[in-house]
């Protein structure tokens, strides 16, 4: 490829500026290459686009939503259950609120849920996985991995439902419940990577040189887990959003009148099939955002696979 062997310059003569420039250039080149590969996969582009769109909707909801006041205390019984129209693209619900506006705000809860759960789960799961994997066949491994086995022995949604139901139903507790069921997946993932990597020669080389255990775990092994972790995080954003919606659907997540997407689907089911739009659009909104994260995740997976191959 483009590796030029043009080093007539004596390395020791390089100035700090030269080095900084070298670094900048390589960085730009690396990013450029990654972006090029990523951009050649139309599906992941669509995924990334969808997510950016949704995130923008969530962040700028007050400016984008046509009726932001419908998310706050509001009743307009005269306009209840109106089908989609030019004023209300997604129609109105049984209380006369604009569904489009509520869906846009609903994304805030979905994304908060996803981001928070991952923010709790990933560090915990990853550190545990690293430790267990690095000390394979020793007590930290046994302790940690047997614990994950136990947590993985119940279907995650069931455990999440159980924990959420025992706590007071609200978004925060739903996030706690999902987090409690989710960390083992990261532990598992990182564990399997780590056990594979700990016998790689670069790890051995560091050990032989005298690098500390924490250096090896966090500086040598962790960077190698990053791409599968990111891939999984992207896919998991989707799952967590679905689980969050499921919890809300049975009343254990976002509480009305807050516009949780699952909550809206649930309340709309009472008006099916005639007033289909009340639950159809929130459901569609869930599908769209989850699809976005899935496409992105698959794109990242392909990207990283291509990079490693």
């Amino acid at each position, binding site marked *: 490829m483009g590796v030029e062997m043009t080093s007539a310059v004596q390395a020791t003569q390089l100035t700090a500026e030269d080095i900084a420039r070298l670094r900048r250039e390589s960085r730009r080149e690396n990013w450029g290459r990654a972006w090029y590969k990523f951009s050649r996969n139309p599906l992941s582009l669509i995924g990334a686009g969808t997510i950016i769109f949704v995130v923008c909707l969530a962040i700028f909801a007050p400016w984008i939503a046509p009726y932001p006041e419908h998310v706050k205390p509001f009743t307009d019984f005269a306009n209840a259950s109106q089908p989609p129209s030019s004023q209300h693209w997604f129609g109105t619900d049984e209380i006369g609120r604009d569904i489009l506006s509520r869906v846009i705000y609903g994304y805030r809860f979905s994304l908060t849920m996803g981001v928070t759960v991952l923010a709790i789960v990933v560090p915990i799961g990853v550190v545990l996985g690293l430790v267990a994997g690095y000390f394979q*066949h020793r007590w930290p491994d046994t302790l940690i991995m*047997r*614990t994950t*086995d*136990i*947590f993985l*022995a*119940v*279907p*995650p*949604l*069931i*455990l999440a*439902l*159980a*924990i959420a*139901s*025992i706590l007071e139903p609200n978004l925060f507790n739903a996030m706690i419940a999902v987090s409690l069921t989710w960390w083992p997946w990261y532990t598992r993932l990182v564990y399997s990577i780590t056990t594979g990597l700990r016998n790689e020669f670069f790890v051995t080389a560091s050990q032989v040189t005298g690098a500390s255990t924490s250096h090896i775990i966090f500086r040598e092994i962790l960077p190698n887990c990053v791409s599968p972790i990111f891939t999984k995080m992207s896919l998991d954003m*989707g799952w967590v959003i*679905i689980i969050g*919606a*499921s919890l809300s*659907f*049975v*009343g*254990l997540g976002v509480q009305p009148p807050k516009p949780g997407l*699952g909550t809206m*689907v649930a309340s709309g*089911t009472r008006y*099916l*099939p005639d007033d*289909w739009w009340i*639950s159809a659009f929130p*459901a569609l909104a*869930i*599908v769209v955002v*989850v*699809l976005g994260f*899935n*496409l992105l995740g698959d794109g990242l997976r392909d990207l990283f696979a291509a990079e490693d191959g």
Partner: protein
Amino acid sequence: MNLLIFIGKRIFHAIFVILGLAIVIFAVARIMPGDPVRLAVGSRAPQWVVDNMREQMHLNDPIPVQFGYWLRDAAQGDFGISLVTRRNVAEDVREFFPATLELALFALTISLTGALLLGTIAARHKDKWIDNIIRIFSYLGIVTPSFVFAIIFILIFAFALDWLPAIGRLSNGVEPPPRVTGFYTIDSLLIGDLATFWDAIRHLILPALALAMASMAQEARITRSSMADNLTKDYIASARALGVSEGLIMRRFLLKPSLIPTVSIVGMDFAAGLGNAFLVELIFNWPGLSRYGMNAMLSKDLNAISAVILSFGIVFVLVNLLVDILVARLDPRISLSAGGGS
């Protein structure tokens, strides 16, 4: 022999996991705030009724003692009285579990069959239009929550088209067959009652399909990619070079190794299915353990929650055990290496 050692190890592991699970469940059930008994007997019942029941449930003892009682009773299959149904929880579980299992197994059958069919077609026509259609289908299957599928299916197939019933296990007026396995399909066949059997099947289709969609999509994808991957393997090229017919290669030399990853995730998918059953049974009014469990959770019925989670945990652990054995049978490498190591 190797396979036996492997199975032995897995069973040992399963027992350990179930025990651990019991501890977790107990802990979860006891952190619940509030007095479940007061909730159960209602506010108008006199205090002595509450005290009586607390005593009976050992709720006044220290936690470790409670756990001892709980574990002892649980080991004997006794989970105490449900606060909602007022029945022995174990009896409830026995009553309702078959319905959920029947549904889940039916869904499993649908998803596996569908996935293998779709996955094979997609792999053989990789990157052609049919592959793309199957891909789109897979994506939609994966990203759509099961409760949305459930609602859509009811609207389309039960309401709009009126092809299939929307709720329950049997039509109104059709009496359930005498209980042997608790599976209406099997029990009705046992007494040769084809009409009931057919009715039970018709009731199974929609909820099972709603449950099956996600795993079908997931498994179809895995099958497709593992098949496509194996197609490029040297042993396929080798078989071709040695003149083995294309049909045989597809049916045997390609299929078996390609099944391994698919079968491996069946356990996980089954788990996801059991979880989703909590929502789907609610929507289809399916009188199974999931709906029972959901009601128990919504009414903080501690004994029932523990029993339900433990039941699902045990089933899930058993299914995983089964899957592991199946995978080990498909893949001799696993059982061969099981002699040593952990």
